[in-house]
């Protein structure tokens, strides 16, 4: 059974529809990339999946023993976070808040989990540093470690590589792939279609045309040929420039 199933999902704000009739499902172990232009409704979809906002129509069903607070979320960065006085350890530990429930303080196991996930992301040496003084790539690792404290099953990543330089972007992609290999299901938003078709098992393309299927199906489809073909050419050009 699928972890997440979207049926005839319609997304939007108040009376404005952003995306209509989305149908897709995510199975354990999948690596789904959600692609589409800026403003096409990717973040809106993610927020609806997390029930941060209600869908205008249709439904999102959870299955296979997945609870909604067992989805680890890496939000698109907001401005408030940037000047917030918080150490890396405090932020990663806050990923355990769902586990802690109404308990006011974190248990020893939760603190250990936070340490483990910092080690997993290679940020143990940054534990006492201030979040806002870290580089973009380090910050994303912190948020990823926090998301990992919230889940063993599914990660939902909203543009995890936005604003990172090419080398750090590659490291981030490798890190995410390694997590997927460990058995964590990945849903990742990206507008980097070349990377999406390179790493993902499934593609959800939203915009004026909607596509959902495996990466092979996407590359064979009209919309996939149009978008992926174009960005692959860009990637090749980039590769030549590097060489």
């Amino acid at each position, binding site marked *: 059974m699928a972890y997440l199933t979207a049926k005839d999902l319609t997304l939007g704000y108040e009376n404005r529809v952003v995306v209509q009739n989305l149908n897709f499902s995510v199975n354990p172990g999948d690596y789904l990339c959600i692609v589409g232009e800026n403003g096409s409704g990717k973040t809106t979809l993610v927020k609806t999946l997390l029930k941060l906002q209600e869908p205008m129509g249709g439904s999102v069903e959870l299955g296979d023993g997945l609870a909604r607070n067992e989805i680890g*979320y890496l939000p698109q960065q907001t401005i408030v976070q940037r000047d917030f*006085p918080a150490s890396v350890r405090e932020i990663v530990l806050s990923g355990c808040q769902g586990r802690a429930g109404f308990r006011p303080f974190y248990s020893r196991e939760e603190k250990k989990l936070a340490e483990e996930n910092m080690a997993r992301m290679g940020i143990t040496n940054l534990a006492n540093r201030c979040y806002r003084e870290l580089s973009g790539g380090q910050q994303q690792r912190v948020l990823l470690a926090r998301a990992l404290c919230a889940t063993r099953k599914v990660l939902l990543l909203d543009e995890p590589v936005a604003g990172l330089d090419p080398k750090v972007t590659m490291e981030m992609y490798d890190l995410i792939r390694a997590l997927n290999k460990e058995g964590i299901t990945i849903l990742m938003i990206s507008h980097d279609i070349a990377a999406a078709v390179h790493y993902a098992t499934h593609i959800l393309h939203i915009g004026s045309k909607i596509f959902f299927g495996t990466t092979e199906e996407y590359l064979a489809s009209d919309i996939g040929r149009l978008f992926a073909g174009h960005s692959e050419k860009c990637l090749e050009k980039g590769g030549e420039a590097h060489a």
Partner: protein
Amino acid sequence: MLETLKFYMNFPFVRYALIVGVLIALCSSLLGVTLVLKRFSFIGDGLSHVAFGAMAIASVVNLTNKMYLVLPVTIVCAILLLKTGQNAKIKGDAAIAMISVGALAFGYLLMNLFPTSSNISGDVCSTLFGSTSILTLTIRDVWLCVVLSIAVLVIYVLFYNKIFAVTFDEDFARSAGTRADRYNLLIAVVIAVIIVLAMNLVGSLLISALVIFPALSAMRLFHSFLKVTICSAVLSVICSLLGILISILWGTPVGSTIVAVDVVAFAICWVIGALAGKRG
């Protein structure tokens, strides 16, 4: 100077003022960080004006304990302001400006129409700037203040981790199953309580300063939430104590003296922070 201080300490009202001052300073500094970072600071400002209006009504109807009116009114307004702030249709800022300026005008109007003493401008001034009220506390005022302060402290400690989570990243908190709306409500109610308490100390116009300056100062020096919180609490208590002592010794108005000390402390922290930043 020590002799003079010892002499003043013999008076119960001086001891009361010191106890109440320390407690209020402690409470008001705790939520400062959250207020600043959540862009809630304007709510604090709006609420202090509401508290002023409620205080005016309480004086006019001649309540023996004004707190019984001021506290509920301020709490209700805190909740209303929070709700309209979340509503995209009515601009939160406009609603706050309307409520706060309206309350200020009505309060002043009421105080003039139904004067309770011959010295109206003196009354208004002391409600706005808290000039002497802290030195006229009765033992009952002190107890009420002690109880409310302890309640605020206990709530803050128990919900510290949740307040951090909701302040740092509300979307993530909600995705992890934390009921962010309830915690926002809790924060709003606690802010209302703190504002009403602080009104005794510095008057309604200067409350925001009492809440925000220690947090801003601490943020110059420290970079973890826990350290900033502790530092701003310590700073706030020290500044209030200094402010009260200075005002007793030299007869300056209590509220503005405390705020002036807070401002000086901020300037010092800013310089230290800038120097440390250059070195590091």
